[in-house]
């Protein structure tokens, strides 16, 4: 496979600077509304501030990949005298919790770095500079671009297993 330059987008999170205002959540939900900015609801946000003020815990966490299964254990970290559950630092939309799911449909949410903007909206709205944005380039082996059909099939395979999908296609093709 050929090598290609890939732009890597980075939101740097300085938890010491977070003032817990949740502007990031608000503007994220607003940006991803349809039409854009037409509605506001932090529950739809792809960034959530894990907050426990009396324990001085202020941790913005971004929605990452969906996972169909929860972890076997629930580990804990003690960082700088503060106890965090592993879930506090985890980006997955997962069956063990409500985080990063569309409130209406339950479908998983994922941060897309506000594709198309010069920087993510959460960064723009974080005047405390707890969130800052960086980009760098790295060499990546170019992955073949998947077509729409392939993406769809892949998610079906993830959900039902390859064999079942193949059986179904075989059955459908007989009908045709």
């Amino acid at each position, binding site marked *: 496979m050929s090598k290609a330059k890939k732009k890597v987008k980075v939101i740097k999170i300085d938890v010491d600077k977070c*003032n*817990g*205002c*949740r*502007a990031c959540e*608000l*503007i994220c939900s*607003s940006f991803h*509304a349809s*039409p*854009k*900015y*037409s*509605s*506001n*609801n*932090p*529950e*739809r946000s792809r960034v959530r501030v*894990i*907050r*426990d*003020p*009396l*324990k*001085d815990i*202020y941790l913005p966490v971004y929605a990452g990949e969906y996972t169909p299964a929860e972890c076997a254990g629930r580990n804990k970290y003690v960082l700088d005298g503060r106890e965090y559950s592993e879930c506090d630092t985890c980006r997955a939309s997962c069956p063990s919790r409500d985080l990063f799911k569309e*409130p209406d449909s339950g479908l998983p949410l994922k941060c897309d770095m506000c594709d198309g903007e010069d920087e993510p909206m959460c960064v*723009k*709205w974080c*005047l*405390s500079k707890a969130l800052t944005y960086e980009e760098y380039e790295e060499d990546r082996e170019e992955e073949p671009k998947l077509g729409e059909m392939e993406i769809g099939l892949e998610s079906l395979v993830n959900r039902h297993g390859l064999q079942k999908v193949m059986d179904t296609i075989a059955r459908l093709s007989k009908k045709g």
Partner: protein
Amino acid sequence: MGYAEAGFNLEIDLTRGNIERVASDPNLAKQYLGGLGTNAKILYERVPPEVEPFSPENLLIFGTGLLTGTPLPSCNRTVISTISPQTNLMAYSMMGGFWAPELKYAGYDKVILRGKSPELVYIWINGDKVELRDASHLKGKGAVETQELIKKELKDPNVQVCAIGLAGENRVFTASIEQGRSSASRLGIGAVMGDKGVKAIAVRGKKDVNVARPLELLQLCNEVLQYVKEREDKPVPNVMPILAGLGSPQEMLHTDEKWHTENFSWGNSRERRKDFWTKEIEDKWKETQENARIRLISCYNCPMKCGAIISLPGMSTYMMKCFSKLTYNMAAFVDDLEFGFRIAQRATEYGVDGFSTPQIMAFAFELREAGILGEEHFAGCPDDNEGKFYWILDRIVRREGIGDILADGTYWAALKIGNGAEAYAHNNIKKHEQLPLKLGMLNPIYFLMYSTGEKCNITQIEGQFPQAPFATMEEREEFVRDWVHVPDEKFKQYLLDWELRGERSNPYYPTVDMSVDIVDWQEMMHYLDDAVGMCAGMSSFPLKPPYHIHNYPIIISAATGMEMDEAELKKIYRRIRNLVRAFNIRRGLTRADEKPPEDHWRKRFPELEEQLLDAYYKFKGWNNQGIPTKETLQELGMDFVSEDLLKRGILSYE
């Protein structure tokens, strides 16, 4: 689909345990916006003047601002309205924090409580599911502790809870409602909540708040944020640091308290200590504050950091903001700031107002010293100042012994104690304790604001115009250069001509008419903020804020879709102002009540003061008793008020 508003109120009858979701009248926003405006409308229509603060018919309304829940920065206020047990007038204390936006996301603009619950309950609003839950296990618990216990019980850290402490349960007249780093403290609304048998209200919301013209509103929000950034690098010169920036006075950040400690009075608002702020105190206080302060924190969607997490060994952590850092120290004559942080922790858990309560405590010890309160009332009281204040705080909150009388505030306590005690309740307006500030020369603008402010709290009515003249013409010219906030160019001239001494200085300059103009502007911004849910710290309170009369109309219009211009917005302000006034007039407020404490200024000018009040009333379209006239009310489309006042004989048909 409505914009900015949820369109529904939650009506809860605590006596019967009945809960209803009621659609609100969409036309009300056009006339009164939301927040204070619509709260006042509901109170006017549903709470007749015969209703006592602690009667089941009194309402306790938790209102969100019209624009709360939209992306408008710093628009997060909860406006709580009821009848104050202390003043017997409308109370509309407010809090920032996270509660109001959560309520909007739950699908409600207001929670309206009536009746009384037979048992202590808390209310759990989980979107469409609302229930009254037993709170017997929370009885006597601290206001902060209660919020944590409820979050744990509901197994959701994103639940927002407002709660009362023991003071509210015991109907202490200075009881607050606490929520995170914020509290609605003034005028005893926590006592009304306690009287209704409600320990807390927990809210969780997952619904959308829609806006009418999204891209336009976003652009306006971005302009606000840009302005905030620029303003941060450009503090207003020639004023003290706490007035130079945005937000509420940044007393969690700044450690320099020379101005407050030397200009405000200590004890029962008695003594100025003009050489208090020594190098030694400065160093010690800085160390104490930096040691106690864990982090600077914000309210919902606000870039300012007016609050702080405070933690000291041997005491549970709490959150603090603004001036309550100093009130206990100064009332108790204690020079160690750590005492202030420690007693405020206990006071916050009890849930009491940090302005009034320390003054009540200092008042008690003055009465003891004067022999008006005998030693029998102080059996068991420690001798040291710190110990004394902890002791009396406990008595007041628990309503034990003399504390039961003191818990009603200095005005009512003095009446009960008698024997000359009235003279010691010297720092009240409309029966409510004021900031401990005693000055030399009467300032006509402040005279009017103190006298007529319906919120009985100077910080909630002052703001846009500098508190004092600048020393030189250069300074004044520099100040007016980018003063885009003035509703009219004439205000710039008022400031340019205002001198420290001579003909154009206090008390005769600004002139009577100018003073009225200036006060009206400052009031207008506060009333609008309280209706849209904006924090005063980003609008009406600081000099040169991001929000003003020129950008509010377009912001309100973009968010709600209502047509709005400055003239219409000013009319709405006048409507709300007149409604609050009429409500209080109906409850017996008179011209005689509209006066600052006798000793607020050393130099008083009775004739000028009468002229000021006359001119202010006239400007407002009120008669010389401060009552809105029929014509004024009709012009504002408030016939329901004029008819009511006529029927009651408060206005005459002549």
